[in-house]
């Protein structure tokens, strides 16, 4: 216990020097330092630097019902040849997570050809995406003498949610950070949740507006007369048309089936019109450009509505065929609105409308306040504990204070090494560790004191003190480490930061209190031939 060969001393000092180098960027700006030195300081959590934390959920039912809707369209187009006179004519009816298909007419014998319909439906039922078991996307079964139920198996639901989650993550990133420069973090959580952390963003409402739009972009031909609009407003709608409104255009009747859709758009960006007012430019892909050209060629003189989430953005008149697929929307936008709309259009349509579950916003001023509070509390805590230890144990207390400082440095070094995030509760964890780290020293010192009181020599007492206290120190610290690990695994957000600093603090404090203090003590005893510690 009392032997410190040169290699051991070098090792301990090496760890400390490494700690200082790693922790240094937290104290001074290292951007001009030589290349081999680390430059990364610990990451500050959102509660210390300010920003927005948003947790959102993709509603499972909505994902499934929108997939069923698509399937219903597939069913309709696959049976497009069948007519009202065909015995297998379908009437799909959506009911949340399931869809009921009714056969419209019995055959000559008075039976509904359900078996035949099941066979034909099975052919258009695709396998689960990315699934290996060969299961089909939809469970299709007979539900009665004339009806068929389409449901979704749990394996298929998992695949659908996974797909929706991936798509939504991509869309969220493209909408929030169209240029790919912002320092945002997106983390999936569970099967259908996403956590968005945007440091430095002051306005949660803007983010929520950006993310709560469906982003369903369509180009629909307008065919409406004032009389038709009036009758549609009275509730009599021309078949195959929808009544939509727009802030610039007022109510218009547009064709239900769009000519060009959002997936035909290649890029979108904010630009300026001739009068230097913000507008949205976008370019269609080859397929979209062709459709756009054909529509404009065949419908000269009509209005062509650009519709986003069922609101008419603008409805310019078609004067001539437009080739090339470059389109723009003009209107009275602010630059920011035009940028956000361009981001929404470029990102594409959300698989389902997200719901916001949990929102935490901290301004950067409050973050600075918190850093200041935390720093002040840490300095005062450290000073008080140091004074207490020196008053209680004198010289030995001084050794403990040195190792306490080494401990704080090592905590910062460890945090920087693993790129952990420091939060306000994390600072509390460091302060708590300062208080608890001396426990190991106290256990040893008390042991030495007892041994000295029993009449043993200093060397034997110190030897016995460290030897006997070791098991207790390990036992006692393992239990706190358990608590920290559980907190890290199950906790969330800032509390996780507390668990991280507490865990690192426990590990480093055992090293500093048990190894570093011992080395200092022995070095002192050898140098000054100490006979006894004044305790």
């Amino acid at each position, binding site marked *: 216990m009392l032997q410190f060969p040169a290699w051991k001393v070098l090792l301990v000092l090496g760890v400390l020097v490494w700690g200082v180098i790693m922790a240094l960027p937290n104290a001074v700006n290292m951007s001009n330092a030589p290349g081999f030195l680390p430059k990364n300081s610990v990451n500050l959590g959102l509660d210390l630097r300010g920003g927005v934390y948003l*947790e959102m959920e993709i509603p499972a039912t909505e994902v499934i019902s929108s997939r069923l809707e698509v399937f219903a369209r597939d069913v309709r187009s696959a049976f497009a040849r069948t007519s009202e006179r065909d015995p297998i004519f379908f009437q799909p009816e959506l009911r949340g997570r399931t869809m009921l298909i009714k056969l419209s007419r019995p055959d000559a014998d008075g039976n509904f050809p359900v078996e035949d319909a099941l066979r034909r439906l099975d052919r258009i039922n695709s396998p689960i995406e990315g699934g290996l078991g060969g299961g089909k996307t939809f469970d299709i079964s007979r539900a009665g003498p004339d009806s068929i139920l389409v449901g979704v198996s749990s394996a298929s639901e998992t695949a659908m949610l996974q797909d929706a989650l991936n798509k939504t993550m991509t869309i969220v990133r493209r909408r929030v950070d169209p240029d790919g420069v912002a320092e945002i973090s997106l983390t999936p959580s569970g099967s259908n949740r996403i956590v968005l952390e945007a440091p430095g963003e*002051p306005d949660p*409402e803007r983010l929520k507006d950006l993310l709560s739009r469906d982003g369903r972009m369509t180009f629909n031909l307008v065919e409406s007369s004032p009389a038709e609009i009036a009758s549609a407003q009275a509730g009599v709608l021309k078949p195959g048309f929808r009544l939509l409104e727009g802030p610039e255009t007022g109510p218009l009747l547009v064709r239900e089936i769009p000519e060009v859709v959002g997936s035909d758009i290649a890029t979108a960006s904010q630009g300026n019109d001739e009068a230097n007012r913000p507008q949205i430019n976008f370019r269609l892909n080859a397929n979209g450009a062709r459709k756009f050209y054909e529509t404009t060629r065949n419908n000269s003189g009509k209005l062509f509505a650009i519709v986003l989430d069922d609101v008419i953005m603008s409805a310019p008149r078609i004067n001539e065929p437009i080739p090339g697929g470059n389109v723009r929307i003009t209107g009275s936008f602010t630059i920011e609105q035009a940028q956000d709309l361009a981001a929404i259009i470029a990102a594409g349509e959300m698989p389902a409308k997200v*719901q*916001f*579950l949990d*929102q935490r*916003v901290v*301004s950067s*001023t*409050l973050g600075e*306040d*918190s850093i*200041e*509070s935390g720093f002040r*509390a*840490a300095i*005062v*805590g450290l000073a008080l*504990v140091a004074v*207490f230890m020196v008053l*209680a*144990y004198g010289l030995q*207390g001084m050794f403990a204070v040195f190792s306490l400082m080494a401990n704080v440095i090592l905590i910062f070094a460890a945090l920087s090494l693993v790129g952990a995030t420091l939060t*306000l*509760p994390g600072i*509390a964890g460091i*302060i*708590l560790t300062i*208080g*608890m780290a*001396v*426990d190991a020293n106290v*256990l040893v010192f*008390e042991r030495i*004191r007892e041994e000295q*009181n029993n009449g043993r020599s200093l060397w034997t007492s110190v030897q016995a003190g460290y030897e*006997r206290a070791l*098991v*207790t120190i390990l*036992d*006692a*610290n*393992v*239990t*706190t*480490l*358990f*608590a*920290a690990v*559980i*907190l890290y695994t*199950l*906790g969330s957000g*800032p*509390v996780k930061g*507390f*668990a991280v600093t*507490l865990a690192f603090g426990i590990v480093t404090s055992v090293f500093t209190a048990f190894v570093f203090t011992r080395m200092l003590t022995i070095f002192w005893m050898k140098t000054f031939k100490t006979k006894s510690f004044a*305790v």
Partner: protein
Amino acid sequence: MLIKYWPKETKIPFMRYRYVGVVLSVLMMIASVYLVMTRGLNLGVDFAGGSVIELRQTEQVTVPEVRSRIQGSLTVNSATNANGELVVIRFGDLDPSLLGPEFQALSDEDKADRASAASNTYVVNALKQEFNLTDADILRNDSVGPKVSGELFREGMIALGVATIMMFLYIAFRYTWSYAVGGIAALVHDAVGTIGLFSLLQLEFDLTTIAALLTIIGYSVNDSVVVFDRIREIRRKYKQMPATEVIDIATNQTLSRTFLTGGTTIIAVLAIVIFGGPVLQGMSVAMIWGIVIGTYSSIYFAAAIVLMLGVDINRKPVEDTPGFEAMP
């Protein structure tokens, strides 16, 4: 140095009063449970859902002004942080009539899901309008929906449960099950007592409180383990000594350490209470109280229960219980 004024060998007959201690502890636990059942806990937004908004207090923005100019049932208080006074506004789901026609058009299910977020938006907009504020003036704006708050509470409770089981297994592995029962009894005592204090003082109970409770649990077991270690050691040395005396000697010998470590930890946490700002206040108050009763319970609950269990359950003198055998 000051430690030399600490008596060299205290001989406090702790175990003579063990029944008093156990009865006191049980009474305190009953009182805590009773308090939680009658007064309840002051759940923060993490667990209750709803919103909390913090503004910097200025000449215009004051607690009474916010109360009088913003409609809806809001709880407005003041708090202090490093750089001045804050106005803290709390609210749950506001009256739907305030939330605009768009909200009222939603289905009942959607209303339940979105009321919290819509209330938050309403208050933020009202504050911005009434006091001419920008986003930067809103220091904090947390809004937790009903789904997440329920989950966070459940997860917190699971964390406490898992921690307790892990501690039990660890002590049982290092000592014996009767020590494990003693250590866990002390841990539950400390956790329940701390929750009781939160109910009594109606301190805000939130995620950081769970963190504090887990730390207290760790500290409590830490404290008990130090005493247990000493009991084992003394038992090995003096095989014929009655168990009561063994425990008394062990607690007396570790007494100075118990007080010193408790002291330094409380000093450090006290610095957080005074300088750490409002976010950490509840957490650090909980920790101080937890350390105080944790120190007490490691002697009067953990050790006392080990003494009782060793004697009663094995129907043998305590000397022969496996707890006192040397570890291999």
